[in-house]
């Protein structure tokens, strides 16, 4: 059975099914992170005092720059496909995967420093919401990395059989990845600076 509207737009929505699907998924993700941001606000306004300077602003800033950089390489990976430049697509997608890995390594050092001092999620309300928000965000990074690795590996062969559908798949991967970046854009000031 062939899945319909993978490349051509569905008449009633004007979109390929995959594109509407990824946006609906992202809408559900907005609600997931929204609930946690809502919890953060409730915990913070209800707290007698809220710690400042618990996290490394330098490491947080570096990770922000890394994730923004990975968003640019991701969109360039898609744009390269649209310009029929397979080599540049592979380069940019590989760079995105590498930057995601560097982000996670930095996060590992951050987590290790806290956990090494016995400051786990049970240590304070701030660290509880910090580990919850960044842990969930980190899982999203891992999910994105798995998808990117697939399209760099076995999934890449679709470029030869159905290049338009492959370009769409990379676009949807990019939409997800930019959303992960978008969440971090709000997590960074909320957790590291305010």
């Amino acid at each position, binding site marked *: 059975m062939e899945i319909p509207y993978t490349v051509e737009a569905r008449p009633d929505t004007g979109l390929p099914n995959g594109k*509407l699907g990824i946006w*609906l998924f992202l809408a559900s993700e907005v609600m997931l992170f929204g*609930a946690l941001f*809502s919890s953060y606000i409730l915990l913070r306004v209800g707290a007698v005092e809220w710690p400042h300077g618990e996290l490394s602003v330098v490491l947080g800033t570096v990770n922000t720059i890394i994730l923004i950089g990975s968003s640019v390489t991701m969109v360039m990976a898609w*744009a390269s496909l649209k310009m029929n430049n397979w080599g540049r697509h592979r380069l940019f997608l590989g760079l995105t995967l590498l930057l995601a890995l560097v982000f996670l390594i930095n996060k590992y050092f951050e987590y290790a420093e806290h956990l090494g001092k016995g400051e786990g999620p049970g240590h304070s309300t701030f660290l509880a919401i910090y580990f919850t928000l960044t842990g969930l965000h980190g899982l999203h990074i891992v999910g994105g990395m798995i998808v990117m690795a697939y399209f760099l590996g076995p999934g890449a062969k679709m470029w030869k059989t159905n290049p338009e559908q492959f370009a769409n798949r990379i676009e949807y991967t990019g939409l997800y990845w930019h959303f992960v970046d978008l969440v971090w854009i709000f997590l960074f000031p909320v957790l590291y600076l305010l």
Partner: protein
Amino acid sequence: MHEDVGKNVKRYIAVFVALMVGTLATVGAAQLQLAVAATITVALLIAIFKGSLVAGVFMHLADERNAIYAALILTAILFAGLILLPVLAYLDRVKY
């Protein structure tokens, strides 16, 4: 198609630079030791600006179909409700 994508590449680079400037501005504003309310307002306004750039340009939301806008408007309304909940809880707290 190639020319359109080529033009967009220049836009992606411009947005990248704007996001970097926004990130440094957020960090800089936090070091200014402003009042808490002012610090939060400035940081969130910059974050909203940066988020709009990512959504509008990288995610191509500035030029999308109505079906996506409809789904996102509903999401935005529900998201606003979620954020409003702790505000209502704060306003309804017991005052000693």
